[in-house]
C-alpha cells in the first residue's frame, strides 16, 4: 500500500497550483483556460483514485500519512492522512469538481478563467480540510475555503448576491472562531508521544477532559459544524446562498461544503468530547428531527426550485446528524453499541449519496435556468414535451431524492431509520415522515415543472439537453445507481474506521 509519491499532497496541491496557472494564462485566452482547468480537474480525479484502490480496508488507522513540521513554536505540523471516513469524501470532491467544471463550460462568459480557477483552488482546500490530521491545519483549510466561495457567489451570483455571500461568510466565520478558541485551549492541555503540546487530532482524541470543559468545547464545535451542515435554526444562510449562487457554486455547496460540517462531527465532536456528546445528544437529535420534519414542510411551499432543493438539503442533512448522535440512545435501549455502527454508517452513506443527488438536482435546475433564466416553478410546465431526455433524468433524480429503493438516497435513509428504531420508536416515526414529505415536495415540483400541458411559449421552444449536459447527468445517475444497488464496497471502506470510532467514543474521557 505504500508508494513513494506523496499522493495526498498531490491531490491537494495539483488543483491549487493548477488554479493559479489557469489564472495566469486566463486573462486573454478563455478556451485555453477552460481546457487547462478541465485537465487539472481530471488529473486530480485520476490521482485520487489510488487513494481508493490502495486503501487497506482492514485498518482503522490513518493511511497515506505525510508529516512535515510547519510552525515549530506551536508544534503545528503539515500532517495529512486519510481513513475510511475521509477518503470517500475526498473522492466525492474530486468527482464533483470535474462535473462543476463541465457545467460552467458554456454558461460562464464573464471572467471565465477566474471562475474555473476559483473552483480548482476551492477543490484543493476542501480536500485539504478532509485530509488534515493537525487541527490547526484543518482550521486553515476550513477557513480558507470560504474565500473562493465568497468570491464565486459574489461575482457570478444573482441579483441579491452581495447580501447572500456576506451572510454566508459571516455566518460561517462566526461559527468557527469559537472552535479555534477550543482548539487553542486543548493545545494547552494535550501532549503528544514526546510530551510536548500538540494539535494532532488523534492526540486530542485521547486527551482527558472534565465534563464541564467537554460541554463548552462541544458547544463551540456544535456551533461551527451546525452552521456548516446547516442545522435548524442556523440554516438561514443556505437558502439565500443557494438562490443567488451560480449553478456550479450551488453544486459544490450542497454536495461537498455541507459535508464538511458532518465530517466535523465525526472527526471532532464525537471523539474529542464523547461525554459531552452523550450528555447533550438529545439536543442534536432534537435539532435534527426539527430539520427533518419542519424544514420538510418548509420545502413543500417553496415557489423557487433552488430554494426548494436547498431546504430539501437541510432536511436530508438532518438524517446525517441524527444518525451520528443515535449511539447512546441505542446503547441505553439495546444494551450494546453494535447498532450504533448502523447509525453512523447510515449518516456517512447519506452524506455521499446526498452529494451526488443534490449535485444532480441543482444541475437540473441549472439546465432549465440557462434556457429560461427563471427558477420559479410557475414559469414552467410540460417540459417533458420539449425536453424528454432531460425529463427522464429529472424524474430519476427526484425519485432518488425522495429515497426510492435502488437509488443511493434509499440506502442512507433506510440505515438511519433502522438505527432510529433501535433507539426509540418515535425518532424513527418522525424520521420516516420524511419519506412521505420528501416524496411530496420533490415529486410535486416535478409534476408542476415537467409534466402537464406546455405552460407557455417559452417552454414550447426549449431545446433538449446538449451532449455536455447529458454527459454530466449520466455520470451522476450512474453513481447514484451504483451506490443504491451495491453499497457494499462503500460500507466496507468505512467499516473499520467507524467500528474504531464507536469503540473509542463508548469509553468515558472524564479523568
Amino acid at each position, binding site marked *: 500500500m505504500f508508494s513513494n509519491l506523496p499522493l495526498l499532497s498531490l491531490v491537494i496541491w495539483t488543483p491549487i497550483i493548477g488554479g493559479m496557472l489557469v*489564472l495566469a494564462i486566463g*486573462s486573454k485566452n478563455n478556451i485555453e483556460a477552460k481546457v487547462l482547468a478541465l485537465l487539472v480537474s481530471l488529473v486530480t480525479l485520476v490521482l485520487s483514485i489510488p487513494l481508493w484502490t490502495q486503501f487497506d480496508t482492514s485498518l482503522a488507522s490513518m493511511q497515506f500519512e505525510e508529516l512535515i513540521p*510547519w*510552525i*515549530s*513554536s*506551536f508544534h503545528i505540523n503539515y500532517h495529512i492522512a486519510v481513513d475510511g471516513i475521509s477518503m470517500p469524501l475526498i473522492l466525492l470532491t474530486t468527482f464533483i469538481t470535474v462535473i462543476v467544471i463541465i457545467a460552467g463550460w458554456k454558461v460562464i462568459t464573464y*471572467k471565465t478563467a*477566474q471562475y474555473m480557477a476559483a473552483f480548482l483552488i476551492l477543490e484543493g482546500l476542501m480536500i485539504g480540510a478532509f485530509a488534515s490530521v493537525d487541527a*490547526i491545519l484543518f*482550521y*486553515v483549510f476550513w*477557513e*480558507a475555503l*470560504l*474565500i473562493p466561495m*465568497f*468570491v464565486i457567489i*459574489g*461575482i457570478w451570483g444573482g441579483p441579491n*448576491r*452581495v447580501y447572500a*455571500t*456576506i451572510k454566508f*461568510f*459571516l455566518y460561517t*466565520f*462566526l461559527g468557527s*472562531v*469559537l472552535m*479555534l*478558541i477550543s482548539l*487553542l*485551549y486543548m*493545545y*494547552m492541555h494535550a501532549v503528544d508521544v514526546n510530551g510536548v503540546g500538540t494539535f494532532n487530532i488523534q492526540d486530542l482524541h485521547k486527551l482527558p477532559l472534565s465534563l464541564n470543559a467537554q460541554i463548552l468545547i462541544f458547544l463551540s464545535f456544535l456551533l461551527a459544524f451546525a452552521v456548516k451542515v446547516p442545522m435548524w435554526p442556523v440554516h438561514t444562510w443556505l437558502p439565500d446562498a443557494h438562490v443567488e449562487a451560480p449553478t456550479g457554486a450551488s453544486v459544490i455547496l450542497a454536495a461537498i461544503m455541507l459535508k464538511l460540517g458532518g465530517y466535523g462531527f465525526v472527526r471532532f465532536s464525537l471523539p474529542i468530547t464523547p461525554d459531552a456528546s452523550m450528555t447533550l445528544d438529545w439536543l442534536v437529535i432534537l435539532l435534527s428531527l426539527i430539520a427533518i420534519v419542519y424544514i420538510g414542510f418548509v420545502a413543500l411551499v417553496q415557489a423557487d426550485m433552488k430554494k426548494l432543493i436547498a431546504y430539501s438539503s437541510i432536511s436530508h442533512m438532518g438524517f446525517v446528524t441524527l444518525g451520528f448522535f443515535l449511539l447512546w440512545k441505542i446503547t441505553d435501549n439495546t444494551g450494546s453499541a453494535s447498532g450504533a455502527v448502523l447509525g453512523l454508517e447510515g449518516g456517512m452513506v447519506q452524506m455521499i449519496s446526498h452529494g451526488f443527488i443534490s449535485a444532480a438536482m441543482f444541475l437540473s435546475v441549472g439546465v432549465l435556468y440557462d434556457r429560461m433564466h427563471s427558477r420559479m416553478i410557475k414559469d414552467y410546465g410540460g417540459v417533458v414535451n420539449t425536453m424528454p431526455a432531460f425529463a427522464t433524468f429529472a424524474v430519476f433524480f427526484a425519485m432518488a431524492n425522495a429515497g426510492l429503493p435502488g437509488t443511493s438516497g434509499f440506502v442512507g435513509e433506510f440505515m438511519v431509520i433502522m438505527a432510529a428504531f433501535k433507539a426509540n420508536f418515535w425518532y424513527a416515526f418522525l424520521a420516516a415522515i420524511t419519506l412521505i414529505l420528501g416524496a411530496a415536495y420533490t415529486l410535486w415540483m416535478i409534476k408542476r415543472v415537467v409534466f402537464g400541458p406546455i405552460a407557455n411559449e417559452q417552454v414550447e421552444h426549449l431545446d433538449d439537453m446538449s451532449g455536455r449536459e447529458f454527459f454530466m447527468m449520466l455520470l451522476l445517475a450512474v453513481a447514484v445507481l451504483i451506490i443504491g444497488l451495491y453499497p457494499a464496497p462503500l460500507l466496507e471502506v468505512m467499516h473499520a474506521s467507524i467500528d474504531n470510532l464507536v469503540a473509542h467514543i463508548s469509553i468515558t474521557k472524564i479523568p
Partner: protein
Amino acid sequence: MNFVTPDFMPAMPEIFLLSMLCVIMIIDLFLKDESRGATYVLSLIALIATAFLSFSNFSTESITTFNGSFILDPMATILKIAICIIVVGVFIYAKDYLKDRNMYKGEYFTLGLFGVLGMMVMVSAGNFLTVYLGLELLSLSMYAMIAMQRDSIVASEAAMKYFILGAIASGILLYGMSMVYAVTGSLDLATINKAVSGADRVVMSFGLVFIILGVAFKLGAVPFHMWMPDVYHGSPTSVTLYIASAPKIAAFAMMYRLLVDGLAGMQADWQMILIILSVLSMVFGNIVAIAQTNIKRMLAYSTISHVGFIIMGVVAGTQAGYGASMFYAIVYAIMSVAGFGMIVLLSRAGFEAENIEDFKGLNQKSPWFAFVMMAIMFSMAGVPPFLGFWAKITVLQEAVNSGFLWLAIVGVLASVIGAFYYLRVIKAVYFDKLVDETPIQASMDIRLTLSLNGMAILALGLYPTVLITLCITAFTRAI
C-alpha cells in the same frame, strides 16, 4: 571618579543613521528640485545600510551601554530591522504621490529619517529619559511631516490636533515618570525594576497609570484614540503611510520597555488596566469602523482594533506573550503599509482614492492588484492562509495559555464584527461595477514593491515559522 568612554558599538546603527542624516541634509541644500531624486536614493541607501548594520550587530545576549540607558537585545535588533524595511516601503510608495502634489522636497525624507532614528532609540531605551528622547524625536518629526502640506486646511488641522494632544500625552507621560522617580530615586529602568517591591504602592500606582496613559495614546488604544481617525484622514496619504506603520512597532517596544523592563513588579496592576484598554480597543475599533465610508478613516479604526490585539499579548504577561505581541506589531505594520500603499497606487495627480467607492471594480481594471487588495483585507480580518491569521492566533494562544480565555473569546468575536467592513472593501473591489475608468498611473517601482508586499502577506502566511520563531525566541533567550 574616572571618566569611562562608553562602548559605542551597540549603538552603531543609530550613529551611522545620524551621520547619514547630516550628510543628506547638507547635500539636499545644494540640490535643485529636478535632482531631488538624489535625496530619495540616499535616504533609501541610509535605511538599508542601517538595517544591515543592525543585523550585523545582532547579539543573543542583552548588552547595555551608556550607563544602562541603551539596551541592545534580540528584540531591539529585530524591531530595528523591521522598522527600516517598513520605512523603505513607505518612501517608495510616497515618492510619486509627493511629486504629483508638489511636496517632493528633502524635508519629507529627512524628517522621516529623524523619525526612524527616534523609533530606534525608543526600541533600545534603557532609561526613562532615553524613552522620552526617542518618543519626542519621532513625534516632532511626525507633526512637521503632517503639516508639510501647508495650504491644505485638513492637514493643518490634523497637525494641530495631533501636536496639542501629543504634547499633553507626553506631559502626562513625563509626570508619571517623575512620580516613579520620586519613589524609586532612579530613571534607569533596570534599577527601577529592582526598587519596585520596596516602593510606596500608592505613588507608584499613580505613576503607572500616567505612564500607561502616555503609552496608550501613542498606540492609539481606546479611550485615547480620538486623534487617530482625524490624523490618518487629514494627513497626506504619503504621511499617513508613515504614521500608520512603523511607529506602532516602536510604540509596542516602548510599552514593553516601560512596563516589563521597568515595572515588571507591578504586573498585576498594569495587567488590569491593559485588559480594559484591550477589550475597549478591539470592540470599539471594529464596531465604529463599520460606519466609515472613507477608507483612511476605516483603516484608522481598524488600527485601533489591531492595537487591542497587540495589547492582549502583553496582558498575557509571559515571554511568549510578548513575543506574540511583537509578531503582531510587525505583521500589522506590513499589512498597514500595504493597505495605504493601495490608496497611493489608485491616487493620481488631482485625485485621491480615499473612499471605499474609489475601489469599485478594481478587478476589471487590474485583477492582480485586486488580488493584492483582497489579500490585505482578508489578512487584516484574520482569515487564513494570510499572515494576519497567524498574528491573531499567536496572540490568542498566549492569552489562552495565561488563563485569559474570556479575553480571547472577546477578541475573536470582535474580529467577526471586523470581518464585515473588510468584506465590504472586497465587495467593492470584486463585485461592483467599474466606475472610474482611468487606468492606474503608478510607476513601476510602486507596482513592484506593492506586489512584493502583497506576496509577502501570502507567502509569510503560508510559511510564518521563521518570523514567529524569531519573535518568540527574542524574548525567551534574552532573559
